[in-house]
């Protein structure tokens, strides 16, 4: 049995142009187009033919970039917004955690707000009285419940809002990114509550940018892109598809940014770009590829990187060293090496050639990196030195910090209960 059925739902928003927006009642009356001016002249499609089902007792995650239609979808399921076309069927009582504490009145006490908010969310007065202590203790606001809500910190406000909403005991719970604002001790409590809901076979629709959480708690994930379903299915696979999509987008933005780069840069910049040397041996072109040979600029830490240099030497030269260096955005050298340090003996270079330095696995953390490439004499005399002329991005789902991502593994003795 389905708890939520979304059948070919579209939602078109009306966008009023500046001319219309500032039209006044008076001018509408004068021109006699009161009704016409209420009509929009530009349409924005927020959702376009979206269909999916959620079985009773299952948790569905909605992911996608900002503006992809997630929140609109949630509001339509909640009944706050109506679809422009398509049909939506829900079975059971719905509680929507779209904005916590929406409707709290700042001037009256937390206690009074709990009652009013509870009634708005569909509880009866008696139910609220019964659950009141639980609501307050969950929100950890025992000492403040009789103070006006305007004196609350934003965290207290949010906790109270969550606590009321979660105690509505709905059949379908809609959650929109509300956990993002909680503090470190409150979020696990909220997640516990959500787990509790899942155990009690309630249906949950979960919108989040916290991909870890989505992967952990959802049975199925929908990836929305520009108002359409880009992918739907098993969480791990869909989250990966989403990450892949983000990486592709970053790649595009990166290439575009490269193209627009202004040649004159502030020389005080730590990442000063430069090129020097008399170019007896010249590095004509540097290409970044993954190990499959595809040219790219955004890499995951697990990927490999091949730095490919097209070199040309006008004369026969016997003394040469090729080197590379990787710097992070703070200018810290992450890694550097050259052929001399690795005990290659230069013998002879003449004419055109190709040098490839193949890094099997990048093992870097999230961020932008800059690349030095150079060819020089053993004593350091530069033929052609490219300083920070090339850059790439590492896009990582890991939250580790530092300079490099060291290979590691965790293990625990059986007495320590821990899970992933």
């Amino acid at each position: 049995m389905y708890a939520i059925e979304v059948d070919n739902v579209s939602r078109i928003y009306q966008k009023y142009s500046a001319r219309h927006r500032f039209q006044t009642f008076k001018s509408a009356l004068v021109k006699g187009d009161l009704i016409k001016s209420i009509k929009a002249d530009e349409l924005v499609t927020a959702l376009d033919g979206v269909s999916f089902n959620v079985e009773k007792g299952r948790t569905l995650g909605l992911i996608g970039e900002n503006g992809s239609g997630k929140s609109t979808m949630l509001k339509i399921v909640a009944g706050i917004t109506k679809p422009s076309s398509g049909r939506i069927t829900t079975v059971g009582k719905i509680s929507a955690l779209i904005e916590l504490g929406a409707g709290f009145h700042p001037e009256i006490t937390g206690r009074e707000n709990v009652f009013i908010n509870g009634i708005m969310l569909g509880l009866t007065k008696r139910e609220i009285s019964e659950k009141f202590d639980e609501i307050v203790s969950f929100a950890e606001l025992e000492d403040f419940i009789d103070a006006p809500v305007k004196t609350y910190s934003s965290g207290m406000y949010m906790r109270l809002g969550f606590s009321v909403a979660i105690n509505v005991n709905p059949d379908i719970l809609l959650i929109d990114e509300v956990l993002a604002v909680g503090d470190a001790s409150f979020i696990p409590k909220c997640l516990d509550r959500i787990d509790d809901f899942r155990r009690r076979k309630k249906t949950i629709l979960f919108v989040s940018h916290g991909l870890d959480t989505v992967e952990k708690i959802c049975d199925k994930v929908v990836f929305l892109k520009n108002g359409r379903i880009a992918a739907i299915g098993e969480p791990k696979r869909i989250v990966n598809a989403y990450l892949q999509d983000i990486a592709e987008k970053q790649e595009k933005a990166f290439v575009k940014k490269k193209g627009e780069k202004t040649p004159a840069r502030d020389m005080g910049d730590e990442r000063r770009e430069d090129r020097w040397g008399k170019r007896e041996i010249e590095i004509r072109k540097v290409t970044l590829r993954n190990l499959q040979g595809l040219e790219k600029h955004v890499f995951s830490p697990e990927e490999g990187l091949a730095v490919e240099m097209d070199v040309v030497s006008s004369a026969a030269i016997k003394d040469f060293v090729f080197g590379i260096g990787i710097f992070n955005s703070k200018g810290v050298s992450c890694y550097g090496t050259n052929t001399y340090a690795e005990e290659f003996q230069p013998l002879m270079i003449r004419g055109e050639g190709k040098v490839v330095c193949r890094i099997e696995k990048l093992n870097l953390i999230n961020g932008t990196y800059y690349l030095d490439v150079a060819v020089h004499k053993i004593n350091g005399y530069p033929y052609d030195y490219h300083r920070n002329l090339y850059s790439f991005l590492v896009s990582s789902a890991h939250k580790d910090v530092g300079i490099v991502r060291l290979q590691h593994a965790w293990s625990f003795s059986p007495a320590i209960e821990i899970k992933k």
Partner: protein
Amino acid sequence: MNLTQNLNTVWKYRVLIQNLVSRELKARYRGTVLGFLWSFLNPLLLMIVYTVVFGFIIQPRDPAFEGSPWIYALFLFCGILPWTWFSSTSLESANVLMINGNLIKKILFPAEILPVVTVTSNLINFLFALPILLIFIPIMGKPFTLWMLFLPVVILVQYVFSLGFGLLISALTVHFRDIKDILANFLTFWFFATPIIYPLSFGSIEKSHFLRILLNLNPMTHIIRGYQSCLFYGELIHWKKLGVTFLAGLLFFVIGYYVFDRLRDSFPEEV
């Protein structure tokens, strides 16, 4: 038109309406020293201003005032108190959907509850101030009469009319924000176009056919006149005129509701 169905929904939310009204009342005067007394003091101060200007300086010669500024003050008070209910309801209705935009956008919630709450909380304010008016009647030298028992009828007529007006104003203001400013000015005009500071029996009105038609077309004329009949003149309310006003109020309500219902779906985006 699914008016009855919608009204049913509103009825289901009556507990919420009740709570929101009490919230409004609590929040309005929270932090003030005099509290709800303000709902009485505001019209009282207005009455004092008009009494000084029209009672003492201009000195009305209408026989109903028996040549006494105090009797005139009482007459004024009978009109200003319900007018304050009406005008503050209208002004608040213009803002109510925007102020509570969060509810409309984030919670599934029939929006017409908000104007209902506005009209009702202002009604309660009016009812709070009413006993004080009643105390003033003997002090100012007028007798109580049994005609006062018709007061609830007049209040009902005003409630229906105010609600219709409130629904219309609140829905339209979402799209035309300048209604707020227009309304503030319009209400001043309306105040003077209603027999509040002058009686209908005033000589110049009696003489001018045009003025009488104009005043009779104003629903508030008959409503305010109803209050004056019950409290000041001590006579039976004018059944026919008030009856027609009630029907006009109902019509206003239906129109207001229709416009509100038509624009309802645009609220979550526009407020």
